[in-house]
């Protein structure tokens, strides 16, 4: 029982990072119809910048976090300006390919500045608590708390603020939103800025439990595409829930099927695909029963 509870709690920690990255992808897509494949790269860049600030230059953690937030948001804005807007007349495929260019550029930048060697980031906080005989370290708690806070904050902002409503309006009906005075460019910029900041935070939070390499966060971001897929690239709550679910599933597979290397990483995504297939069949079945097929 303890093992099961532990697997769920650890899965929620890992899933939080997946959820944050997935939320960034969904946020951009629902507002701009652009699949931002550079979300993991923004996270990696954020992690490196935070490492430079706090581990190399020994600046306070809060200063590091602030710099990462500003930098990641600026990178998000830069992606919109340099890689997405020039391709706005292209279809979804073209715009997605534009963000792949950003992945390569950021990767090159990281290699040029920090090199390819592995780096390590100390935990941001110490301490911890025990729940049902399972310990959660301070870093685990920080990740869980940050994700909860950001999830609630995003939910509140998207329904209660003017900017959030503009994002939602643009997502639901871009033409109607434009007629109502919502400026598409501003909405796109806002989505990229928010997504960038989310990416930077995710990278910074995850790295103390991992090894800092240029490609590490990209692996997580690939899994987070599964969360965004489960959310239909539209729904933030569903994306976040799916991210957490994928994390838990990965953790359970790791614990109960230890000799299946590679399976934990793909288990969550396979589950999402299976779920979507089942849902699609259910929809088809309902349509058939209604006589619409």
């Amino acid at each position, binding site marked *: 029982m303890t093992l099961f509870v532990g697997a769920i709690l650890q899965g929620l920690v890992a899933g939080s990072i997946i959820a944050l990255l997935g939320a960034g992808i969904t946020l951009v897509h629902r507002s701009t119809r652009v699949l931002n494949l550079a979300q993991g790269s923004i996270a990696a860049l954020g992690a490196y910048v935070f490492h430079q600030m706090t581990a190399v230059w020994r600046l306070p953690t809060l200063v590091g976090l602030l710099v990462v937030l500003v930098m990641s948001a600026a990178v998000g804005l830069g992606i919109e300006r340099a890689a997405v807007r020039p391709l706005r007349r292209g279809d*979804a495929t073209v715009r997605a390919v534009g963000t792949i260019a950003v992945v390569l550029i950021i990767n090159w930048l990281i290699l040029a500045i920090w090199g390819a060697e592995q780096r*390590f980031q100390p935990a941001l906080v110490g301490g*911890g608590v025990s729940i049902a005989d399972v310990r959660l*370290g301070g870093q685990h708690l920080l990740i869980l708390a940050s994700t909860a806070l950001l999830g609630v904050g995003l939910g509140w902002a998207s329904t209660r603020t003017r900017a959030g409503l503009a994002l939602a309006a643009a997502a639901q009906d871009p033409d109607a939103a434009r007629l109502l005075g919502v400026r598409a460019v501003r909405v796109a910029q806002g989505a990229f800025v928010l997504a960038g900041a989310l990416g930077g935070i995710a990278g910074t939070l995850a790295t*103390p439990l991992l090894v800092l390499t240029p490609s590490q966060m990209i692996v997580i971001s690939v899994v987070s595409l599964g969360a965004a897929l489960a959310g239909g690239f539209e729904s933030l709550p569903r994306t976040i829930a799916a991210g957490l679910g994928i994390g838990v599933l990965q953790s359970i597979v790791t614990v109960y099927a230890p000799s299946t290397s*590679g399976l934990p990483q793909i288990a969550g995504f396979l589950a999402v695909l299976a779920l979507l297939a089942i849902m699609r069949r259910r929809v088809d079945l309902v349509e058939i029963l209604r006589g619409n097929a």
Partner: protein
Amino acid sequence: MLRRIVVGAVAVALTATACGTRADFSSAPTGRRTQIIEEVVSGSGAPVAIGTTGPTTRTRTEVETPTLAPGSGIRNGKISIGGIFPLSGGLSALGVPPAKAAAAYYRWVNDHGGIDGLEIDFQTCDDKADPNQSAACTDRLVNAGVFTMGPSFTPFSPNVIPMLERKGVPWIGYDGINVEGFASPLAVTVGADIQTMGHALLPYWYRQVEQRTGTAPKDIGVVYLDSAPSRAYLAEAKETICPALGCRIAVETRVTYFTLDYSSICLQMRSANVDGVWIVTDPASAVKMLVQCRELKYTPSPGGFLGQHGVYMDLTMEQSGSFADGMLANSALLPPSVDAPAIREMKKIIGTYEKDISYGYFTVLGYASARMSVDVLRRALRADPTLTRASALKAAGQITSYDCNGLCEGVNLAPPAALHGGNHRIWIVRSKYDRNAGGHWVLDGGPVDAWRAETWPTPGRRS
């Protein structure tokens, strides 16, 4: 459309993730035929004596020595020695130090008269830890006419040895990590094969824990990288070492370079109540394992964590801090943090030419390999002034107790190393974290004779 793009892209990425970029260490050199060869005729016609001790994984009669190419690579008083290292890319942190250390030692030799007057021309090639680049480097260096391959660090190069065998070029100063090299009649190494490492480390740890706590670590949890050397390590422990000691591998968890969730593995080990956890992975995976177990405050009792190729994991101690204190590991060479005359001399020689170098395991490896190649070539020259690849290999075969100038002990250099267990006298090191100096290894025991410490059936070394 969007879903199709995502699913397609992700399927490709996840396939890569699941498979990892692991190297296939299992590719054994091909083209060997069962044949008794006591002597081979080199290009210059000189006879070469091959290993004189008994078999390990293969019987002696199975070893065939490829025909050696005539001795080239010596021109105008210079002898060319090749070296392959990941000087850039993801493993450059491990490749640059041995390259610098070897270059510094060769420079020192040249400044002190060379190898009996022959100046060393050390030609290096950057393989970026890419097996295709390793093959390209081998081709380039051999075509450039190197006399022998020398100090190198080529963890992802299963095809280098067969290429060199086909070309008839010996590897004197083999890095001792790639399993395939131990069976090659052309590779001279101070390294030790996986089985030997396991036979030194596990019994030592088992007895130490038993002595210290009164309880032997009978149930062992293993976290291993999904690669051929790790699997070989684990198989040796399960099939040979543990049955003799009375332990068992209670939990085995396979990981890849992309495994991120080690917390669940720590939980799993804790739930299985293992007496100790043996980490058989690359350094980065070991770091992830230890820092995530640290967050959970999980240390297996009474055995704690056990490493492998200890000094291979310098980073592990630095990052996990005092949490890894007391972790035992094994090493074919003295770790650079040990205060010994051999280490001091190494640092003095390298420090003469290299100010910007970190003294980790790979620095010692590069230095020891370079030192060995010079000692072998010098010995060959003195035995026969007409230096050929065959005479160099013959000289190596006659050195049955080499000490790397104090960095190792009693190493039999006769190739193939698999015939005599390679370097079977292994140092056991213990991790120690010092807040001011960071993590380092201290000598805990040794050199331990891996094949004589216990009375089990020895499938490996026969002597």
